[in-house]
């Protein structure tokens, strides 16, 4: 009995540790005093200044557009690559998968400076294009890693069967293989999208002046000290994430394929 309560208290302690800082940020986002320590009354001013902040809205714009573009392009290249790789000789396939693993295993700072060195040496000006390219580079491996297991299961035989029945290779791909691996494609896209939205380090090294995403903006603001607008931004992001996760959970509960917390946990492991 005592043991049970120790366990519960412990878990409660861990969750307090996880949520206390976020709770404090949310509380301060409504605090009219600029100094963080004292409560000086309720206000929504920080939300107002946040929406009028030119830099933050431009950062939000870049964050979203790069996430959408990089996840889409990475999904297209990644799915094609995964299908192609699955039809290759095992040895070649293994070698390619090892190279594909490199951006996953390398610390972000190494990937970031490697790409920066490359872009600068080739003579490309750092900016929107290089940042987008960098995001595609680190997104593709995750798409391949989430599509490849599904391809291994079945699709080669199914595709042959389709072609024996008169389908062209492209028709067989489009009508048989793609529907078969669709869940993998979707989760690959989602992983790529979240990784892109959350990235700081690689963007930091591969972007140029004038183009920054939210993470870079937050970093430079935080370096200059505490800004109440960041609290407001955190609050908004926190509740968007919460709503999104609850939404995904509800949707998957309704769907025939139940995706429970375990599967979610495994997926976020990849992130």
């Amino acid at each position, binding site marked *: 009995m005592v043991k049970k309560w120790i*366990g519960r208290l412990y*878990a409660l302690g*861990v969750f307090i*540790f*996880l949520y*206390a*800082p976020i709770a*404090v*940020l949310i509380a*301060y986002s409504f605090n009219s005093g600029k100094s*963080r320590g*004292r409560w000086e009354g309720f206000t929504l001013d920080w939300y107002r200044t946040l929406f009028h902040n030119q830099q933050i809205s431009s950062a939000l714009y870049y964050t979203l557009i790069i996430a959408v573009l990089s996840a889409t392009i990475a999904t297209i*290249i990644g799915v*094609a*690559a*995964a*299908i*192609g*790789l699955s*039809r*290759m000789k095992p040895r070649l396939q293994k070698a*390619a998968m090892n*190279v594909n*693993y*490199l951006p*996953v*295993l*390398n*610390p972000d*700072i*190494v990937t970031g*400076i*490697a*790409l920066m*060195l*490359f872009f600068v040496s080739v003579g490309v000006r750092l900016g929107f294009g290089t940042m987008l390219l960098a995001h595609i*580079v680190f997104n*593709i491996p995750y798409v391949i890693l989430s599509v490849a297991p599904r391809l291994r299961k079945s699709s080669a035989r199914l*595709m042959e069967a389709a*072609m024996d029945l008169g389908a062209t290779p492209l028709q067989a*791909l489009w009508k048989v293989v793609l529907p078969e691996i669709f869940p993998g494609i979707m989760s690959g896209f989602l992983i790529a999208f979240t990784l892109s939205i959350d990235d*700081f*380090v690689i963007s930091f*090294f591969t972007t140029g002046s004038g183009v920054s995403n*939210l*993470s870079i903006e*937050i*970093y430079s603001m*935080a*370096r200059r000290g505490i800004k109440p607008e960041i609290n407001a931004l*955190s609050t908004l992001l926190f509740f968007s*994430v919460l709503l999104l*996760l609850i939404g995904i*959970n509800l949707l998957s509960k309704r769907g025939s394929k139940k995706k*429970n*917390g*375990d599967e*979610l*946990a495994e997926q*976020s492991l990849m992130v």
Partner: protein
Amino acid sequence: MKKTSWLAGPYLIWMALFIVIPLLMILVYAVIQDGTVSLAAFLKFMQPVYLKVLGRSLWLALLATAICLVMGYPAAMFIAGREKAVRNLLLMLFLVPMWMNFLLRTYAWMTLLGNNGLINRFLGFLGLPAMDLMYNDVAVVLGMVYNFLPFMVLPIYTVLHRMDRSLIEAARDLGANSAGVFAKVTLPLSMPGIASGITMVFMPAVSTFVISRLLGGGQYMLIGNLVEQQFLVQGDWNFGSAISMILIVVILVSMGIMSRFEKGEQGGVTPW
């Protein structure tokens, strides 16, 4: 069999261009200076100032990893032992902060630890003197633990959850007490999860420059800061590349050690 392997063609070229060549460029910058092969950049690193930075990075990352393990293992066990509905809820609660922006999570601690932060206000309220909580090693380790704890809990949870319960029952039937079951059954079986948890915490911790920049003191705090400074402030790309190579070696060695415990089991990260 009809060939569809050409579909991978563009990506093979892509990988060569954007993965292999950029990494090779780090190597080239590290060993070639002014047109000749030279180890000067590595020799420069052998100065006490820089070795100290490497030592501090390793030490703080190891400390953070150890704390994550000690804190995270019981938490993972707790979650794995609940009924399904509770378990899913707890997992969700664990994931939500992880989905928040990494910078914001680190920034949150600035508001708690700062001189006018909540903790010092609270101390003042109790009539205690204010403490310097920010800009030191403790703050950096705290930031690491806070950011990377889920990376430890989730793989351990996954292994514990998949574990065959009947093994525990069998051990009990054969006369083992709780401590015995844990030491002889649960812990050994969860080794793959622990190993991948350690890799997943240690790797970002040893290479971070954000946490140390926002919560730590001094310009050359960790090896990540050293690399960042060389590229963005000092403009010494040779030295920066050499330090990056050293960082890569550190990570390869740590992954090599950890992969011995993973034994090809499922888990988050499986090195080559």
